[in-house]
């Protein structure tokens, strides 16, 4: 059973028959992340892949453990956040562009944060970054908090009542707003240091977990790889 993201039909499931056999002609084409031209036949219970041809291979994403873990994360989020069969070209485009960026570049922090922010928007979970979700006031430039359960920023007065509100640095809120509003190429030029990158990741992750009401499985693997790359082999 495959999950597909299409430009005009949104997310859909389809069955691919016999792909585990070594003689299968389709199995190589249908590897995860490939962009293919597919012929789908409407079946009784599910659509079936009748034919396929690779348009764009994403083998570099499968050949490198870090890229693989990030591509799986992107795929898992796409699957969890979008409903089935809801046509949405923007979401398709976002997924395709993100996978291409993961394939072509080495620095993936901004790519992933941009993807997360935009996907949240496409999924109907756009975080509020300008007005306090508690009282509606415009957020002041001194202290900001982010309340995942509230769906966005809160002012210092409302923060204690918003369970889970954590403080948000000035730079973080600037970057988050930019991720939300500006196209990717503007965001790609941002210089983000390690501490800020970590903060952005933390806030977006907590918001996503809140929205999905569960952990994102593949995020744990990314974390583990990151942890292990900092240890010596004996410590792993």
């Amino acid at each position: 059973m495959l999950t597909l993201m299409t430009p005009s039909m949104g997310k859909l499931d389809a069955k691919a028959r016999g792909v585990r056999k070594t003689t299968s002609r389709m199995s190589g084409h249908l590897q995860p992340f490939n962009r293919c031209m597919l012929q789908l036949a409407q079946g009784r219970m599910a659509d079936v892949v009748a034919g396929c041809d690779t348009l764009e291979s994403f083998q570099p994403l499968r050949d490198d453990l870090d890229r693989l873990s990030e591509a799986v994360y992107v795929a898992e989020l796409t699957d969890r956040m979008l409903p089935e069969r809801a046509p949405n070209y923007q979401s398709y485009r976002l997924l395709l562009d993100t996978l291409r960026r993961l394939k072509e570049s080495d620095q993936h922090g901004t790519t992933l944060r941009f993807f997360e922010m935009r996907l949240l928007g496409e999924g109907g979970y756009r975080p509020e970054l300008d007005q306090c979700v508690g009282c509606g006031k415009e957020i002041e430039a001194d202290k900001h908090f982010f309340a995942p359960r509230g769906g966005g920023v809160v002012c210092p007065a409302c923060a204690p009542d918003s369970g889970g509100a954590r403080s948000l640095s000035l730079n973080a809120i600037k970057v988050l707003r930019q991720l939300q509003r500006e196209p990717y190429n503007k965001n790609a030029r941002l210089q983000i240091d390690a501490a800020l990158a970590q903060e952005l990741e933390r806030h977006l992750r907590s918001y996503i977990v809140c929205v999905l009401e569960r952990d994102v499985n593949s995020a744990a693997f990314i974390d583990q790889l990151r942890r292990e790359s900092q240890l010596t082999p004996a410590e792993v």
Partner: protein
Amino acid sequence: MNESSSAIAAPLARLVEEFYKLPGIGPKSAQRLAYYLLRMPPAEAQALAAAIIEVKERVVLCSICQNVTEADPCRVCSDVTRDRTVICVVEEPLDILAIERTHAFRGLHHVLHGTISPMDGIGPEDLKIRELLERFRGDDVREVILATNPNLEGEATAMYLTRLITPLGIKLTRLARGLPAGGDIEYADDDTLTRALEGRQEVQQDGADGRES
């Protein structure tokens, strides 16, 4: 499955329910199996029940290679004629069956009991990886063959193990990938073809002058 029918006796319904839990068994198959068992002689039904219980009680994991076995260590690990310097790492016990059938491999095995599947939340700590690393301390292991499946999860697992084992200075090899027997170059995808080209082997002439092929 619904419990609407009082038309079906409770023990029978329970049996159907149990069969339905098994992989590849849908509601119709579960019913067919249950009704077949009804018609079986009692002795045969007992034998089936006893075999199920026995498997759970007597089959354990080999403490060395993690394969399913009755004796611990298993037959392969206890076999002194095997090459103990080579370990072939596979995903599941059935993979060992397939490899042993070829009679082409004389080293030892190791079963991970799964693959790294980040989306399903299956990480390295859920597999028998620690047990594999333990083996490097004891035996003199010179080569580890990564024989996980050539799919996304199998590759991820192979890459992860490569990261772990490379610093230990042990030779790491991966099963060859490329065109399968009976395959078709015209229909093959780019990556498979690329790999097949990269992994090409020199051919030797066979025949009349007595040289081996």
